[in-house]
């Protein structure tokens, strides 16, 4: 009987591999917008994430003591993924990516080229141009993009190491608006598909992972939760649950009821 009890203690899954680097956790987290650094660190630890995103900004020359993120986050403990958030052109994003690489941690970049200040949706033309140039410059590019299969395919074609379609707009917390698009992107691409942006709560993360994607990146859902570490903990299991459910394979959807108990052997009326 003990054999039965221990039969499913772990789900058989391969690690998430991006450009030859393997990661245990399929949850990646951002470091922006937390109420305090202490709260951020607790949330990141609770999330179990290995990949942690950071942004590149000017040093504040008037009060430089300890305001860089690395003052609070041990770079040996996490894989730092620099982003090009806030960039509105390919040239600007390329410049930020090069500065980030110079910090000396790795040659991965989360490429964002934003096309519109209100929606924060990507400028796909600029994104493709920047991706092409950064791949040529030996970057491992993880490209934040629309939930659009054509752009996703082109990003893969130009050599991106991973494609990161949105669940819904950055910071919106609207959850997975178009499961079908995300599923089609995953079906068509060979490189990892990491859903980035829009996840608001644990059920969003679970539903997203159930589409078969390789991972999720989130920030605001944790930073703006009443209890960031609590939400990080919930997200960690939601990502694992969604992944396990995807691997297990869900039952078919039917528009009719099918009894779960035998229809034979009923008492005579």
């Amino acid at each position: 009987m003990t054999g039965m009890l221990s039969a499913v203690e772990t789900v058989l899954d391969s690690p998430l591999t991006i450009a030859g680097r393997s990661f245990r956790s399929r949850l990646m987290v951002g470091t922006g917008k937390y109420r305090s650094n202490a709260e951020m660190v607790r949330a990141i630890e609770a999330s179990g994430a290995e990949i942690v995103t950071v942004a590149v900004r000017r040093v504040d020359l008037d009060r430089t003591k300890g305001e860089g993120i690395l003052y609070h986050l041990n770079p040996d403990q996490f894989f730092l993924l620099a982003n090009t958030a806030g960039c509105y052109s390919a040239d600007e994003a390329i410049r930020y990516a090069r500065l980030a690489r110079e910090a000396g941690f790795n040659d991965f970049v989360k490429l964002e080229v934003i096309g519109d200040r209100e929606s924060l949706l990507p400028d796909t033309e600029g994104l493709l141009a920047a991706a092409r140039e950064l791949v040529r410059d030996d970057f491992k590019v993880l490209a934040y993009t629309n939930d659009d299969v054509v752009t996703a395919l082109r990003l893969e074609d130009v050599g991106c190491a991973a494609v990161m379609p949105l669940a819904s707009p950055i910071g919106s917390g609207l959850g997975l608006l178009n499961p079908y698009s995300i599923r089609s992107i995953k079906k068509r691409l060979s490189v990892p598909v990491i859903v980035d942006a829009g996840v608001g709560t644990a059920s969003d993360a679970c539903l997203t992972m159930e589409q078969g994607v390789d991972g999720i990146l989130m920030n605001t859902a944790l930073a703006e939760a009443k209890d960031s570490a609590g939400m990080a903990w919930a997200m960690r299991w939601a990502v694992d649950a969604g992944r396990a459910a995807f691997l297990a394979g869900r039952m078919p959807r039917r528009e009719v009821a099918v009894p779960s108990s035998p229809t034979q052997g009923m008492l005579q009326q």
Partner: protein
Amino acid sequence: MEIRLLVNGEPRNIPGPATLDDLLQHLGLDSRTVVVEHNRSIVRRPRLGEVPLAAGDSVELVHFVGGG
């Protein structure tokens, strides 16, 4: 002799002659924690002491901050 520079978009005077390394020291910054861009070109850490500053030069000093 003072050199007038544009550091992170703000005018700054520093005593000259000076290199990028001198600028970092003048600002109290540890070169291991910042990335330096001088007139739009990245200057790697080992070369910071070799690059002289001239009046009107533009220097960007960046580092990692929280972001998603």
